């Protein structure tokens, strides 16, 4: 935001007529002339979608319908507001949901009632100044140019600014985002050396989690919660850690406890549902998925995946007709999302099998296969695995095996996924044959990789690149292959000089790899090499 307060356009959202008038009078007295007001979330969304506002002053509690946080999430999701706008949440009281929710989208500031003009003006001025000082960093983050954002943070830090802690916090988040775990750990430890602040301690725990040191991660998250059991971000990460080490019942319990303190976080309900489903606790899983759908209706958490998972739970609960209804609802909600359509068809086939209607099940799978032909490699591992199961039930063993082999090839270094594939084979009483197929698939990928590395060693980068390009085409979800190709392209450019086409290719490979696994350690090195 580059405009001054009197020049800015302001939206006031409050369900209470008197409060709207009062807030309007306040900002008028500050010299603001462009002021709109909205009484309901619907009115607010309408205005936000058609006007650009520099400042939004929004009451958290708006009666029935969306609350202030949900409006904020929708506005961010639909890009009605950019990184430069200021969102101030007005609230009568501090609630857990507002402050300790897993919300990734946070308002710039909040104000506790009662508000007077002097206080509001003082806060708005401070926020404008803050936005201006962080503008470059926020823009870089918005453009996903994390390396530049980190450089800008370092420049700011050298100036010894008043908001030092805030910049350290932004920088540490960025280091985690780009996967520079060593630097992140050093930074968190430095901050903790001065004061044991929970965000930095939780950050250190995240570093241990991301570097797979789960026992230390667990210890740290537990310590944070012992010191401040209301610091729910640590609960969410503790649950993830427990899940990773197979302590799934405890993971579910941690989420249940967190839920008691903050019952309205869509993200947490989804984690609870996932944990409960893994534990075979279908009742809890169903309720939690339903709640996720309800809470995430207008937010970044809205995802077709939740509908599909709820349908799976319902199929497992022997109410496949309910599952079909949910899948229909999901289709309505996510029209035009091809990946979601494939996933829905796959679960549909499982539901029809449960209903004893193999023909309809086969038709659903055929539908999924047809759509997949247009969208190679873009389905999740979970959907692919469900599809293989369904194909086995339909007696299409060869197709099922192909599907599973493709999963293995795309994820040959991921032990967790390999063991899940193994479990699917076991479930079909094909344990031995399955292990053979897994081994063959893994070796095929390793073979290509080795050949690529050998060519590179001999200095034949261009041959290596074309070999790996073909491999990536065949294995579009293989993080390892994608990163190796990217490394080869960087090597080739070092030898032959840079060109735009290869720069572009390398950057899109990095983007794709980040989608698959944001914590890949090589991401940071390659991104830096492309700077």
């Amino acid at each position: 935001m580059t405009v001054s307060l009197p020049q800015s356009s302001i939206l006031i959202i409050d369900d209470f007529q008197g409060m709207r008038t009062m807030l309007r009078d306040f900002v008028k007295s500050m010299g603001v002339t462009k002021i709109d007001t909205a009484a309901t979330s619907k009115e607010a969304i309408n205005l936000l979608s058609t006007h650009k506002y520099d400042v939004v002053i929004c009451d958290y509690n708006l009666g029935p319908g969306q609350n202030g946080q949900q409006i904020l999430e929708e506005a961010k999701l639909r890009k009605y507001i950019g990184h430069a706008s200021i969102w101030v949440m007005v609230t009568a009281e501090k609630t857990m949901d507002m402050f300790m929710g897993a919300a990734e989208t946070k308002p710039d500031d909040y104000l506790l009632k009662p508000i007077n003009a002097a206080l509001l003006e003082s806060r708005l001025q401070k926020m404008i100044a803050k936005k201006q000082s962080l503008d470059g960093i926020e823009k870089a983050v918005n453009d996903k140019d994390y390396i530049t954002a980190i450089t800008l943070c370092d420049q700011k830090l050298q100036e010894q600014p008043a908001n030092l802690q805030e910049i350290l916090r932004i920088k540490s988040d960025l280091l985690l985002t780009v996967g520079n775990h060593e630097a992140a750990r050093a930074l968190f430890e430095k901050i903790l050396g001065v004061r044991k602040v929970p965000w930095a301690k939780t950050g250190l725990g995240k570093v241990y989690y991301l570097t797979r040191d789960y026992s230390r991660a667990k210890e740290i998250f537990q310590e944070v919660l012992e010191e401040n059991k209301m610091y729910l971000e640590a609960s969410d990460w503790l649950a993830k850690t427990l899940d990773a080490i197979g302590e799934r019942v405890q993971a579910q319990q941690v989420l249940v406890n967190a839920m008691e303190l903050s019952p309205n976080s869509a993200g947490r309900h989804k984690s609870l549902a996932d944990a409960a489903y893994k534990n075979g606790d279908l009742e809890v899983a169903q309720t939690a998925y339903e709640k996720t759908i309800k809470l995430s209706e207008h937010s970044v958490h809205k995802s077709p995946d939740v509908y599909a998972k709820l349908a799976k739970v319902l199929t497992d609960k022997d109410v496949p007709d309910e599952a079909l209804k949910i899948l229909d609802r999901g289709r309505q909600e996510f029209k035009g999302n091809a990946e979601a359509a494939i996933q829905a068809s796959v679960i549909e086939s499982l539901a029809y099998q449960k209903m004893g209607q193999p023909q309809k099940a086969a038709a659903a799978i055929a539908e999924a296969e047809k759509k997949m032909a247009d969208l190679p490699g873009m389905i999740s591992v979970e959907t692919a695995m469900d599809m293989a199961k369904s194909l086995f039930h339909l007696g299409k063993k060869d197709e099922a095996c192909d599907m599973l082999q493709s999963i293995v090839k795309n994820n040959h270094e991921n032990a967790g996924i390999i063991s899940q594939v193994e479990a699917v084979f076991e479930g079909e009483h094909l344990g031995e044959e399955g292990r053979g197929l897994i081994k063959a698939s893994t070796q095929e990928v390793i073979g290509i990789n080795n050949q690529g590395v050998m060519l590179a060693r001999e200095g034949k980068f261009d041959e290596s690149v074309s070999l790996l390009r073909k491999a990536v085409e065949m294995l579009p979800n293989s993080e390892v292959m994608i990163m190796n190709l990217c490394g080869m392209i960087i090597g080739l450019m070092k030898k032959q000089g840079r060109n735009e086409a290869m720069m572009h290719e390398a950057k899109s490979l990095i983007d794709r790899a980040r989608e698959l696994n944001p914590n890949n350690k090589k991401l940071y090195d390659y991104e830096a090499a492309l700077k």
Partner: protein
Amino acid sequence: MAQEDISFTDFIASSIHDMKNSLNMQISSLEKIAVKSQEQGDTPTFEQLGVMIYEANRMNANLIQLLTIYKFGKTIYPMDVAEQSVCELIEEAILQDKSIMDFKGISVSIECEEDCYWYFDRDLVTGILINALNNAYKYTSNKIRVAAKIDGRFLEIRIEDNGQGYPAGMLQNDSVSKNKGINFSSGSTGLGFYFSSRVAAMHKNGTDQGSLIIENGGLYGGGCFVVRLP
């Protein structure tokens, strides 16, 4: 929402929310009328309105304190200790009480280094300061001083006034952590002190814990309200 879905907490919270909206508007309207009466030179009305606004502010502060203490009991208060600018904290607390101070012609001075930062929950400590300022407003002659400095492992904030000071009975214990009991004749329920010492004690760092002390003296020789946070 079905009837059984509404918990007692939600009920209290939504009622307080409603009451605070009313109070907020009431205060804002009273301030408008007050400015008008001042312009017209109607000093008695102006002063009366000052008293009304002060009482409305006190009511609001009590509502926040009650709700917060209720939440402490249920461990559902989202305590959020983070590094904050101490000057900003003090300035904002004074801004919230600015109109009543103006009505009574009380001058409030701040002594705090610009680069003084400390770790605390912003809203809770603002609550302490508002409570202290409301008290000082009642007892001061015409001056209040808010001074903050870092003293070893603690941040010390002093709110001093140039009134008569606290009565001896209130100073018997060196700490105000004990409930002073309800005294209807003086209008003191002990809520403000209870809230403030509870909040101070909730701030911990290692083995250090926050505390609240009241004493007489200070720069102006009146009442001193001293909060120390680790």
